[in-house]
């Protein structure tokens, strides 16, 4: 490995409550495209943020061209020749293409004794950089905000090269691109590789890895799993490396009596992230909704809950067509929604457990509009007991609880409303193993004993597999698969999520 330009060994990174990277390693050779893949939360983003100087590792070694380096901030990584093209682009929309490319290092000249920007040289320089990338149809005087996503990305690449980047990090660069933009991007990547620029390429789309990369490294749960030459591996092997984790102490699901259809969605449409979605959830049934981040799972759930409004389609509850245009109506119809973003959407963190628990049922704990605190307190104490929420009492501020206990408060808010359908969006994200098992036990019990219909969105395949009676898979805003509990395996679901089946192998197909 002497020809490595960048080498990371034994990288460790902790965040409060999370061990994001454990003894991770990674290396990039001169002039190669090295793909970095893994599930959500595998540690890819943390790793590249360490490479680009955003985070400092807690332990481990980084060597650049053989010499140990430590970046204190992104600027130091920049000057070492490492540039990052982020998913959310870091450009100034109100400035011109040339200004963006030369932001921070514009060519200057003396005019009246003052250092001023040399506009002519800057525009010529920008044109030359773009021409170098075979980009000739872009006006360097145009405002970046007026460009499409593909062109903005090209500006960002040109900007990185204007800083003489030797290593270019691309985080999901095709996520927002159209098909022709993807082709152009691939052309640029290949061009850069020929010129000896090294590229770290992060993607969810395995087809891109095979089309573009020389080597591929897989991370899982913050650990390094392995590195392969792309020529010597297969999609099936990569998928099993990505998902092949032990099924960690998950609660065994109780068998439930499946009853009548509670929710029926018919051709729900709200492009781009909800396209023609139809499915049912029955009483006592837990339906798992799998898919990559950005595949439209939460959006579909929010259309049902009335946060987003459907452009067309129909929702039926217990066979009756209903019109839901805002969350309060969904609540009236007996739908609960445990949202993905607990702190922002699920809880009012500054308020007490008591106030949060009664939030969706204020009417029933009130006598004529007056909130009855005794009833409220009884409700909260019930929730604390039944969900074993660890708190000093019902008047504790929700923000002071641990993540798992906060989540239980959100769940208790909806249980208090006696829902027919409970939508749970990433119900156990970011909470510890013990609380996770408790929430799973609770879900299982609610379905089996109370006949609650549960729609569970999760990015964790083991959770999906363990908890669901039926599994739906979304990709690019569409439902692309439905599997019974018996036929579902991690590999089958992962294939459907990534569109990596034999027939769906081209880039165009995934767009």
């Amino acid at each position, binding site marked *: 490995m002497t020809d490595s330009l960048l080498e990371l060994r034994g990288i460790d990174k902790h965040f409060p409550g999370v061990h994001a990277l454990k003894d991770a390693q990674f290396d990039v050779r001169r002039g190669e495209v090295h793909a970095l893949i893994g599930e959500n939360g595998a540690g890819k983003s943390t790793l590249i943020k360490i490479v680009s100087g955003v985070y400092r590792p807690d332990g481990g070694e980084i060597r650049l061209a053989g010499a140990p380096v430590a970046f204190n901030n992104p600027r130091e990584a920049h000057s070492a020749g490492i540039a990052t093209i982020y998913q959310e682009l870091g450009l100034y929309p109100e400035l011109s293409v040339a200004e963006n490319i030369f932001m921070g290092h514009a060519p200057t000249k003396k005019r009246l004794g003052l250092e001023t920007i040399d506009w002519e040289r800057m525009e010529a320089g920008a044109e030359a950089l773009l021409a170098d990338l075979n980009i000739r149809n872009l006006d360097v005087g145009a405002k970046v905000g007026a460009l499409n996503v593909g062109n903005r990305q090209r500006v960002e690449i040109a900007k990185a090269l204007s800083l003489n980047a030797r290593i270019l990090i691309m985080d999901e660069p095709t996520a927002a691109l159209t098909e022709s933009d993807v082709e152009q991007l691939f052309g640029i990547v290949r061009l850069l590789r020929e010129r000896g620029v090294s590229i770290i390429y992060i993607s969810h789309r395995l087809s891109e890895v095979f089309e573009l990369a020389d080597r591929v490294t897989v991370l899982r749960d913050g650990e390094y799993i392995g590195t392969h030459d792309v020529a010597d591996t297969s999609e099936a092997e990569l998928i099993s490396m990505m998902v092949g984790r032990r099924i960690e102490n998950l609660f065994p699901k109780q068998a439930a009596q499946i009853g009548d259809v509670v929710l029926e969605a018919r051709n729900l449409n709200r492009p781009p992230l909800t396209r023609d979605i139809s499915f049912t959830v029955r009483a006592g049934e837990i339906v798992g909704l799998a898919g990559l981040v950005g595949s439209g799972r939460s959006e579909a759930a929010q259309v049902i809950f009335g946060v987003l409004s459907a452009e067309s389609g129909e929702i039926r509850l217990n066979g009756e067509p209903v019109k839901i245009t805002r969350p309060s109506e969904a609540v009236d119809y007996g739908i609960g929604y445990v949202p993905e973003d607990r702190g922002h*959407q699920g809880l009012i963190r500054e308020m007490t457990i008591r106030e949060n628990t009664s*939030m969706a049922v204020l009417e029933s704990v009130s006598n004529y509009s007056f909130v009855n605190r005794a009833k409220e307190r009884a409700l909260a104490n019930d929730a604390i007991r039944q969900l074993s929420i660890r708190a000093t009492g019902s008047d504790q501020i929700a923000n002071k609880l641990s993540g798992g206990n906060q989540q239980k408060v959100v769940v208790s808010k909806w249980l208090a409303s006696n829902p027919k359908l409970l939508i749970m969006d990433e119900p156990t994200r970011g909470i510890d193993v013990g609380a996770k098992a408790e929430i799973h036990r609770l879900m299982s019990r609610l379905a089996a004993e109370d006949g609650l219909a549960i729609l569970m969105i999760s990015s964790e395949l083991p959770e999906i597999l363990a908890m669901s009676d039926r599994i739906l898979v979304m990709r690019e805003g569409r439902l692309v698969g439905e599997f019974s509990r018996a036929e579902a395996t991690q590999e089958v679901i992962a294939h459907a999520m990534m569109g990596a089946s034999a027939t769906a192998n081209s880039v165009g197909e995934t767009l």
Partner: protein
Amino acid sequence: MRKTRTDPRNPTLGEKLRRLLISQEGVLFLIMLVSVLFLSSRTDKFLTVDNLLQQGRFMTEIGLIAIPMTYIIITGGIDLSVGSILGLTAIVLGWTWQELGFPLELAIITGILSGTVAGFINGLFIVRVGVPPLIMTLATLALYRGLAEGISEARSARGYPEWFFQLGQGEFLGIPTQLWLLIVAVIIFGIILARTRLGRALYAIGNNETGARFSGLTVNRHLLFIYAFSGFMSAVAGYIFVSRVSTTRSDMGTGIELDVIAAVVLGGTSIFGGTGSIPGTIIGVVLIQLLKNGLTLSGVTSDATIVVIGSVLIFAILVNNFIQSRGDES
């Protein structure tokens, strides 16, 4: 039966007292007490029944508007147009009576109705179009005042019948009539904020509007209501204003929004939303009025009075912040 340690659910009397003292309202009350003692030592004209009742008369308009302003600031909003709505109401009242020949009773109702509609329009744009409250009410601050000036054509309406002055200049049981109105409003709307679903919803919206919406609260309906309520109370204040000064002019209530907001913030309502109370606001209103009056009576110039009031505002906010940071640690 002796308690050596305090149980948070069953506080002893001493513990209750301690909590009241370190509450925001408690601190403010102490500041007010100190101010009253100080001012009454400077002049014997200050601490007299007649003077205090007179001050009650003067502060009623600010007090009435401060109630909905507290509601609005608790939700994280603001209403800068209250002074202009007050002026607009006064003009509509005088103009419909004198120029259009409405019976005075009907003119009063029309005036209050137009103030309420003005507030409702604020709410409508804030909720439906998503204009930030600061921008929307800054715009209508100018717009409603302009409207008032246009309608009045710089003329003032006078010559109201005797009964009309009862509210602004009369007394009931020895206390200024409008002060009764303020007291009743404070009690009713204080209880509504502290005890009802509406109040709870306002705090929830102020702390986390998205979270409130995702819990099924009808956020928009609540916001619409409080801005209309603000218009209504400003209109009532406008009616009282006209009744108190016996005439109608289009510049009535100019700048009153700043006095109102100062009182609300002094009373412990966070400008970022989520916390605040009507008792706090009322102490804020009273404190500012007493300082203004007491300092003037002590011979302090009006410029210096403003400086003192500004300093008290800053001091009170510092103390509140200190208490809150202490509270967060425990």
